[in-house]
């Protein structure tokens, strides 16, 4: 078990290397060079050259990459061009806000999906199954940033029940767990949970349906077990597949919340990324992307390891 985890960790090294290369390349994809984003267009040539030398942009690309990599690995992500604060500080604060929103959305989406999926798989009537499949279809098809706007229109503009944007009553001080802050989370959580809700409902339903058709279920029935006892066996067998998809969805939620965070002005990584793009703040863009990608990789690894722990059929070592 431990050996498997270790092997997966070692396998992550070349992928992580590739990821760092891609993130490094992001800056060089940008039109013009990174310097032109910092200096005013009428800056004298000597100043531009000096800055280029200071940032190492006058060196060949491989050397620039190595330099960037060593500096980044030591935890220094550079300085934000927009605010002048260290990138690690900016990204760190935003990351926490994103995680808070992701956790609440995952809780909502996965709980609902498991209930709906099981209900549909077990449903005797076609109506229930149809209803659940329709909900799942809406979940995967709805443009979630549009749903966010519709939610704001209904619950903030028309009814005035919930705040339309921000993360709390005094948004400067960061997120806290109290009723006032929770009110601000309701709409973003619902909007963000749509995609995982749709995907997970489909997954749970089809996985359980497939397992219910297996011979061991018939055998358990023949042995005289009741439905509830059998459900336990079914769930055990469905868990690995569902966990894998859940992990992927949770990761996508954290990396893909940019649209929802923009609609609700939720100060998370997505919001940071969006403003960085429009200020052409490349260090922030690079730092945020790198942090999110590494988090996604580690999450995938964790899910993989947990999956082998849960699944009695997989024996790896």
């Amino acid at each position, binding site marked *: 078990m431990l050996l498997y985890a270790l092997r997966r960790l070692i396998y992550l090294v*070349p*992928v*992580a290397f*590739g*990821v760092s*290369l*891609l*993130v490094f390349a*992001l*800056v060089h*994809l*940008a*039109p013009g060079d990174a310097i032109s984003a910092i200096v005013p267009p009428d800056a004298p040539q000597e100043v531009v050259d000096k800055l280029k030398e200071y940032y190492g942009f006058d060196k060949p690309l491989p050397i620039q990459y190595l330099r960037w990599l060593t500096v980044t690995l030591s935890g220094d992500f550079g300085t934000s061009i927009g605010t002048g604060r260290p990138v690690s500080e900016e990204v760190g604060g935003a990351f926490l806000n994103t995680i808070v929103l992701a956790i609440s959305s995952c809780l909502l989406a996965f709980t609902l999906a498991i209930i709906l999926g099981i209900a549909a798989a077990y449903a005797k009537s076609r109506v229930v199954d149809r209803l659940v499949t329709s909900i799942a*279809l*809406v979940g*995967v*098809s*709805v*443009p*979630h*940033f*549009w*749903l966010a*706007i*519709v939610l*704001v*229109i209904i619950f903030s*503009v*028309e009814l005035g029940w919930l705040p339309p944007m921000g993360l709390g009553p005094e948004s400067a001080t960061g997120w806290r767990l109290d009723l006032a802050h929770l009110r601000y989370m309701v709409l973003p959580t619902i909007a963000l949970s749509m995609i995982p809700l749709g995907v997970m409902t489909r997954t749970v339903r*089809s996985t359980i349906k497939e397992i219910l058709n297996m011979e061991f279920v018939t055998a358990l029935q023949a042995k005289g077990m009741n439905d509830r006892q059998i459900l336990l066996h079914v769930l055990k067998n469905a868990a690995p597949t569902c966990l894998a998809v859940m992990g992927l969805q949770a*990761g*996508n939620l*954290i*990396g*893909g919340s*940019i*649209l929802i965070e*923009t*609609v609700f002005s939720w100060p998370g990584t997505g919001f940071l*990324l*969006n403003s*960085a*793009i*429009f200020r052409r703040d*490349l260090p922030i*863009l690079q730092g945020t*992307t790198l942090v*999110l*990608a590494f988090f*996604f*990789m580690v999450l*995938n690894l964790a899910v993989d390891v947990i999956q082998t722990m849960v699944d009695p059929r997989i024996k790896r070592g």
Partner: protein
Amino acid sequence: MAIQSPSIDVGGGAAVRAIPASASRGYWESVRRRLRRDPVTVVCGVVLLLIVLSALTAPWLGLADPYKTSMIYRLKPIGTPRFLLGSDELGRDMLSRLIYGGRLSLFMGVTPVVCALLIGGLLGITAGFLGGRVNMLIMRIMDVFYAFPSVLLAISLSGAMGAGAENTLLALTLVFIPPICRVSESVTTQVRGFDFVDAAKASGAGTLTIVRVHVLGNVLGPILVYATSLISVAIILAAGLSFLGLGVKPPEPEWGLMLNTLRQAIYVNPVLAALPGVMIFITSICFNLMSDGLRAAMDVKA
């Protein structure tokens, strides 16, 4: 996604998985028949056809000029004379812009999937058929792209390259190549293991002939079905990028961009502000249902 066994059902044709090359015409015939009998797929197909046709023939439909602004008629509600679906924040006709908007929105959603299908499919089939080192190389490169959540990758790429329709297309294509490549690879690897491939090899068929005649016919179905399931994601993602201001630039009519510019109007005319999203929703739901129908008709396991 997985082809299970080369079983051929002689009776009903329900379990045709691995079809010999000579029988492939009958297979596509039965797929078409099954599609025609599926009411959901037919309705979705008709709706999509209407959206596509109206977008294509928009200049000849007698619509108002989608670029013509009017200071007097700004944010008029639905049903205003001369403005059937109201007017936007610059007094442009909404109906006209929604129909014209289909052009760019559909184009920006479908093109990346088609490009990724060509590139990713080619890479995946090559990796799957050749195996060994080539497979290692291609699939490990794909793993790097897989380390990014797809939305993040799309936004970071197009964010770094700067706004514009071409950059969005490029970024989205890059996002969809890895998943299509992975599916193509796994399907091809399975087909390669079938006896008929060995038989063809033993009877002296060259690599290209085997791929063209025996492999392509069996892998194209699953790959195609998977690719169609990506179209709705692509349309939403493309609209999302425009919504962020990264895709199409104003004043072009495009659903995502329209949602963005109308956002300021949610206090004045909320129904109007939500309209472009309805178009995205309808289109993406139709593509998803079509893809499901296609999957069932082609008998591809999900």
